[in-house]
C-alpha cells in the first residue's frame, strides 16, 4: 500500500497474501486511515488487545486491505483511560467494531455513540471479558438493559419491534422498525444475542481444541473459518500444507459456497411466494450435503480443514461422484433459473426491492457477495489467488443494481462458477500427502488468515505468547461490514418485504456476535 507521505516503518506479517504491520502514533492513526482510504483500501477489522500484563498497555489494531495486500496498523495506548480516534468518519463500518471493542476491553474510541453493541447486561458493565484480570463470577445474573434506539416522531409514525426470537428457523437478533403505514422510515438493528465469549474461549481452551472452536463460530461457514484459522496457525509455525491439502481445502470451500447458495436460492423463491423453488433447491442442497458426508466425513465438512492440511483423503470414487453430481446440479439449476427469470410474480418481488446503490455500497465499505451485487468486484480468490485458485482462473461475479434480484443473480452466477471449479479441482487434484506436521508448540508471534467464504472474506488474527498458547484470537466475519447496509436496504420498502431483503443478504449472527 502506498503510504509514502506517512513515513511508516512497515514490517512483514505472516498471512496468506502480502501483508505488513506498522506502528502508528497517536496523531497518525486517523491520517493513515484517510490516506489508505483515498488509495482505495477497505477496513477489514478492528480489535483491541490487553498487553498490560507485559507492561505495554493496550493495542488498537486496524486491519486494512488494498489491491496489493493487507496492512495492519498498530496503535499503542499506555493505559485503560486512553482513547483512540474515531475511525467511523473514514470507514463507517468501524463504528460498531469500536463499540464491540469497548464492550470486551473497555478501551473507547473518541466517538459520540457510546452505546454498547455486544453487551446486554450478562456481565457487569464495568468488567471487560478480554482484560487479563477478568474473572467471571457465578453470582452475576443477566440483567436488564435499556438500549437507546433512535425513534422517529411524527403523525402516524409507529414502531415495530421484531426478535430476538424470529418467526422462522433462523438466528436471533432484534430489528426495530419505525414505520408509517407499511412503509419503513427507519430500521435499527440490535445484535449480540448469540455472544458466546468466543474470543475469551480461545485463550482458555487447550490449543488442540482451538480448531474445533474456530469451525463452530459460524456453522454455515465452518470450512471458511477452519481454513482461515489454519492459515494463521500455519503462518505462526512456518508450515506449508502439501499441495493436495490446499486443493482439497478449496474443494470443501467451493462445496460450502454451493450448498449455501442453493439453500438461499430456494429460501428466496419461497419468500417471494414460490414454494416450488424451495422444494427444488433444498433437494439439490441435500444432495450436496450427502456428498460431503461421504467425502469429508461430515455433512457441513466440519473439522475437515485442520492446521497443517486436511483431516481425510476422499476416495477417487467419491471425488468423481462430486464432479458428476455437479454436472447434474448445474443442469437442474439452469432450468430453475429460467423458471425464476420468467416468473412474473417472483421478478416483481425481486426487482428494485431492498436496493443498495453502488455509491452507497462503496461509502459503507460493503464486502463479499452483497458488495458484488452492488457494483463491487473484489473476491479474494480472484484478487490474491494462491494454490489452487491461481491455476483455476476464478471469475469474480458482479452486478450493478444492488437489489434483491442482483443478489440472487450473483448467487446463481457464483453457483455455476463454483460447480465449474469443483469439476476442475477434481480433474487436476495432485497426489501426495494431505497434511504437514505442525510443531507441538507454536512460537510466539502474530499471524493472519483470510479466505473468501460464501458471504465474503473471513479473517483471523491469531497471537501466541511465549508459552505457545493463544494469547489473543480475533475472528472477523464479513457480516460486520454488511449489516449496516441492511438498514439502508430496507428504507422506503414495505415491512412485508423485509424478510425477503434480509434473506437476500443472509448475514451471520453467531459469526458477528462472537
Amino acid at each position, binding site marked *: 500500500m502506498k503510504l509514502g507521505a506517512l513515513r511508516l516503518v512497515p514490517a512483514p506479517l505472516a498471512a496468506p497474501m502480502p501483508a505488513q504491520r506498522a506502528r502508528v502514533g497517536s496523531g497518525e492513526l486517523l491520517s493513515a486511515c484517510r490516506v489508505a482510504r483515498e488509495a482505495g483500501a477497505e477496513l477489514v477489522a478492528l480489535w483491541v488487545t490487553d498487553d498490560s500484563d507485559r507492561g505495554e498497555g493496550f493495542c488498537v489494531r486496524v486491519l486494512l486491505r488494498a489491491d496489493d495486500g493487507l496492512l495492519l496498523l498498530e496503535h499503542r495506548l499506555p493505559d485503560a483511560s486512553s482513547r483512540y480516534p474515531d475511525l467511523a468518519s473514514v470507514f463507517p463500518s468501524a463504528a460498531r467494531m469500536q463499540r464491540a471493542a469497548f464492550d470486551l476491553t473497555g478501551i473507547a474510541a473518541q466517538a459520540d455513540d457510546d452505546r454498547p453493541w455486544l453487551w446486554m447486561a450478562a456481565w457487569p458493565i464495568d468488567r471487560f471479558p478480554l482484560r487479563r484480570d477478568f474473572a467471571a463470577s457465578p453470582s452475576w445474573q443477566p440483567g436488564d438493559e435499556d438500549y437507546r434506539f433512535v425513534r422517529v416522531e411524527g403523525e402516524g409514525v409507529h414502531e415495530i419491534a421484531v426478535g430476538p426470537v424470529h418467526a422462522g428457523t433462523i438466528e436471533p437478533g432484534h430489528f426495530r422498525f419505525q414505520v408509517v403505514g407499511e412503509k419503513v422510515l427507519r430500521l435499527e438493528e440490535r445484535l449480540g444475542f448469540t*455472544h458466546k*465469549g*468466543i474470543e*475469551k*474461549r480461545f485463550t482458555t481452551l487447550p490449543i488442540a481444541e482451538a480448531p474445533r472452536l474456530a469451525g463452530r463460530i459460524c*456453522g454455515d461457514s465452518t470450512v471458511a473459518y477452519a481454513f482461515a484459522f489454519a492459515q494463521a496457525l500455519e503462518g505462526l509455525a512456518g508450515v506449508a500444507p502439501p499441495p493436495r491439502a490446499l486443493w482439497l481445502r478449496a474443494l470443501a470451500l467451493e462445496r460450502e459456497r454451493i450448498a449455501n447458495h442453493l439453500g438461499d436460492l430456494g429460501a428466496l423463491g419461497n419468500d417471494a411466494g414460490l414454494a*416450488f423453488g424451495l422444494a427444488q433447491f433444498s433437494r439439490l*442442497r*441435500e444432495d450436496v450435503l450427502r456428498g460431503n458426508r461421504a467425502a469429508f466425513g461430515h455433512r457441513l465438512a466440519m473439522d475437515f480443514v485442520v492446521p497443517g492440511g486436511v483431516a481425510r483423503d476422499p476416495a477417487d470414487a467419491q471425488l468423481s461422484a462430486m464432479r458428476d453430481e455437479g454436472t447434474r446440479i448445474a443442469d437442474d439449476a439452469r432450468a430453475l433459473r429460467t423458471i425464476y427469470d420468467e416468473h412474473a410474480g417472483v421478478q416483481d418481488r425481486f426487482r428494485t426491492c431492498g436496493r443498495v446503490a453502488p455509491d452507497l455500497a462503496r461509502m459503507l465499505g460493503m464486502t463479499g457477495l452483497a458488495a458484488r451485487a452492488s457494483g463491487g468486484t473484489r473476491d479474494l480468490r480472484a484478487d490474491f489467488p494462491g494454490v489452487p485458485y491461481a491455476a483455476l482462473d476464478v471469475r469474480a461475479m458482479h452486478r450493478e443494481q444492488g437489489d434483491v434480484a442482483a443478489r440472487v443473480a450473483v448467487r446463481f452466477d457464483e453457483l455455476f462458477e463454483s460447480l465449474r471449479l469443483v469439476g476442475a479441482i477434481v480433474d487436476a487434484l495432485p497426489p501426495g500427502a494431505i497434511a504437514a506436521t505442525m510443531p507441538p508448540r507454536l512460537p510466539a508471534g502474530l499471524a493472519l488468515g483470510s479466505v473468501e467464504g460464501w458471504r465474503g472474506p473471513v479473517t483471523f488474527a491469531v497471537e501466541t505468547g511465549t508459552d505457545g498458547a493463544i494469547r489473543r484470537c480475533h475472528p472477523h466475519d464479513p457480516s460486520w461490514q454488511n449489516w449496516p447496509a441492511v438498514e439502508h436496504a430496507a428504507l422506503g420498502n414495505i415491512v412485508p418485504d423485509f424478510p425477503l431483503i434480509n434473506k437476500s443478504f443472509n448475514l451471520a449472527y453467531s459469526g458477528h456476535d462472537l
Partner: protein
Amino acid sequence: MLHILRRIAATGIVSEPLPEPADEATLAARLQRDILATLGRALTIRHVDAGSCNGCELEIVALGNPYYNLEGAGIRFVASPRHADLLLVTGPVSKHMTAALQRTYDATPEPKLVVAVGDCGCTGGIFGESYATTGGVASVIPVDVAVPGCPPTPIDILRGILAAVNARQA
C-alpha cells in the same frame, strides 16, 4: 407455469421413508399415532436459537426438504410459541438469550415439550459454561429429550422429536 409442472413431474417424489422403527409398524404410522394420542392433532414446533452457531439450524431447516418431508408426517414449524406443542432449542444458551428463552417457554401452552438439539444444547458443547454461556438448555428450562451431535443429522433430530412425544405419552 408449464415449466414448473414439467419440472415437478420430472423430479418425481424423492421423499424417503422415515427411519426404520424397532417394531414392525412403519415409523410414519407410529409417529402419527403417537402425535394424535398425545396431542389429538398435528405436532407444531417452535424453534428457538439460544446462541447456536447456526449449524443446528441448517439441519433443522433440512428436515423440511423433500427427502425428509416433515410436513408429510404431520409436523409443522409455527411462527409463535403460543401455537406450539414443542420447543426445539439449539445453542449453549448464551446469557443474552436466557430471558428470551424463558419468555418463549412461558408463552408455550401445554404439553410444553422441549427438545434440546446439538452438543451445545445438551452440555454447552465446545463453548461450555462461561461468562457468556449457561452450559446448555436444561440450565434454563426443563428438557424432555436431548439430541447430541454437532450438528445432529436431520434423522437424529426427528428421532428426538419422536422420543419427546413418546416420553410424554408414557
